[in-house]
């Protein structure tokens, strides 16, 4: 189907289902229960899940396939955001032109940065991209204030020209009239599920991006990119010019980042320079590695994981902890709260850091590898000893998947 092999089609369908029913799946706890703070099914957070999913999918096309580790991808995210906001200031509040421009501008910007940075590989490439991104960040903060509005960030105002919008046009980002913040909430007993226009727009775009990424991964071009990662010398002596291949991968991933930036600005029409800072570039590296670099679904998982931590895990405060351990005698309760407290709430970075270290050390293939190992364990248990020899023989012949 759609020019994909069976396994990939299945993966796409599973992802599509998860994304479609996310408002329900991510809200497993009744709204008034004490666990409600772990519900992630509100539009603002779900939008972040899919937008950063797009960002990570694009980053993975560069890092996962060619092995070139860019430390400056947030620059493209920021450029995309600024372009989108400008489009909404000048032309129309409809998000389509805004998103289109953010992809184009980020693409052009990445041609420039990629052309220079790709003259080097390895650590030097990483440093060059980092330098470019920090340069962009600082320019956005200072010299380019007329374009970026410096520290305040670029916002839409009532005085903006918006030459395509008539008098009655909506004053919030919209898709042909449907505003991004429009939402319907359904109640089932104690549960409440919110379905918003913005989230579903992001979800559809994310599914298209994911589909394109699968096509790229399985195409001859994708194979060439993996060959670049594997052995550049052999590439050169097989008559292949590695430079245009790596540049194309860089530009594609830059455009994905621009798309993510454009979507961020479409959901919430403002753009600030901090979106380009190196910590933002580092975050997408973490997402990709945590989920599994070079795998299809890994970066999306990683993005969801980190955003969940950042927004949900960070909200556990001392009072919540005391509530959980209230059944214990006083002294022991305080002891447990004191031990756990540094790892939650504002200390969520500590937990994430430890998790990241454990993944890198024990699961170099990321969360995807973890999933595969668990799957294998179950399959082995099912088969038992009768055909254990057969499976061992198969394992010897079949290479490990991805």
């Amino acid at each position: 189907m759609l020019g994909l092999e069976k396994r990939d089609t299945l993966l796409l369908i599973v992802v599509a289902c998860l994304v479609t029913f996310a408002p329900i799946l991510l809200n497993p706890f009744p709204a008034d229960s004490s666990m409600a703070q772990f519900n992630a099914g509100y539009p603002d957070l779900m939008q972040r899940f899919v937008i950063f999913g797009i960002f990570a999918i694009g980053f993975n096309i560069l890092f996962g396939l060619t092995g070139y580790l860019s430390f400056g991808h947030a620059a493209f995210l920021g450029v995309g955001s600024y372009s989108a906001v400008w489009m909404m200031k000048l032309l129309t509040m409809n998000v389509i032109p805004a998103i289109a421009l953010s992809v184009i501008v980020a693409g052009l910007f990445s041609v420039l940065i990629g052309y220079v940075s790709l003259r080097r590989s390895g650590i030097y490439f990483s440093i060059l991209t980092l330098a470019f991104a920090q340069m962009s960040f600082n320019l956005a903060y200072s010299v380019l204030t007329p374009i970026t509005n410096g520290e305040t960030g670029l916002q839409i105002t009532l005085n903006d020209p918006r030459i395509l919008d008539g008098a009655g046009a909506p004053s919030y980002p919209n898709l042909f009239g449907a505003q991004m913040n429009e939402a319907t909430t359904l109640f089932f007993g104690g549960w409440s599920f919110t379905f918003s226009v913005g989230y579903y727009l992001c979800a559809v775009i994310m599914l298209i991006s994911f589909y394109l990424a699968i096509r790229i991964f399985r195409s001859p071009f994708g194979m060439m990119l993996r060959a670049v990662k594997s052995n550049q010398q052999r590439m050169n002596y097989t008559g292949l010019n590695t430079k245009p291949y790596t540049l194309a991968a860089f530009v594609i991933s830059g455009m994905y980042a621009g798309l993510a930036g454009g979507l961020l600005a479409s959901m919430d029409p403002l753009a600030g320079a901090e979106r380009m800072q190196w910590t933002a570039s580092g975050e997408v590296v973490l997402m990709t590695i945590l989920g599994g670099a070079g795998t299809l679904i890994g970066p999306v998982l990683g993005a969801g994981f980190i955003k969940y931590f950042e927004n949900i895990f960070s909200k556990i405060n001392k009072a919540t902890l005391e509530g959980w351990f209230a059944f214990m005698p006083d002294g022991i309760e305080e002891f447990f709260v004191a031990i756990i407290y540094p790892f939650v709430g504002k200390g969520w970075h500590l937990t994430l850091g430890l998790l990241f270290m454990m993944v890198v050390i024990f699961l170099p293939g990321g969360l995807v590898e973890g999933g595969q190992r668990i799957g294998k364990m179950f399959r082995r248990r099912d088969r038992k000893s009768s055909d254990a020899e057969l499976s061992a023989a198969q394992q010897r012949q079949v290479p490990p998947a991805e």
Partner: protein
Amino acid sequence: MGILEVKNVGKRFGGLQALSNVNLTVEENSVHAIIGPNGAGKSTLLNCLVGKLIPDTGSVMFDGQSVLGRKPYEINQMGISRVFQTPEIFADLTVMENMLIPCFAKRDGSFRMHALESMMNEKDIVGKAEHMLEEMKLIDKRAMHAAAMSRGDKRRLEIAMCLAQDPRLLLLDEPTAGMARADTNNTIDLLKQIKEERNITIAIIEHDMHVVFSLAERITVLAQGTPLVEDTPDKIKGHPKVKEAYLGETQAA
């Protein structure tokens, strides 16, 4: 006039004159061996032929065109393929993918943006790759990761990858270095078979005299960066200068 003409090539690394006044002609459809003791400049010469190094003086002509100043991938596209001393393959890819890449390079040139095309629609390329693997007796290993193969199989795969491009000149850099005797003999047979079945010129750098004398039609002996003598294998065997510079040493050792 030969397919490869090397004239007056010289190369200096700092204080070391690695090559000086090298003249060499490789005739079309011949097997030409370049031998010489360690440090004679064999590898430097080879690197000058494929664009890895640019000689300080002289000229290198392939099929009437200069290769100097061209990038390795451009020289490859002209029709020169190189087999390395340690097999250079795409270790992280499957054997089949290793085979597909040179087939694409042959058809599409040095770059093509086929990002949204499906491998399923590339029947001619897949067919060609499968045919090559069958010919090289690697077809049952097609799904294996190339890194997991034995040294001998890696060498076979590398040669197959080079042949998939239908090169006019195949350069081999000590193809049997570090191989067991049985693997060496297999490689000799493979190269003989390639020579018989294909319209191809082979230039080979080799340390192993057994390999050289079983394959070569002409031999150039290199010593201290200059060609000492060039002749047929029979004449080289008995040549006093060569014995002194090279064969005597290795036989004693």
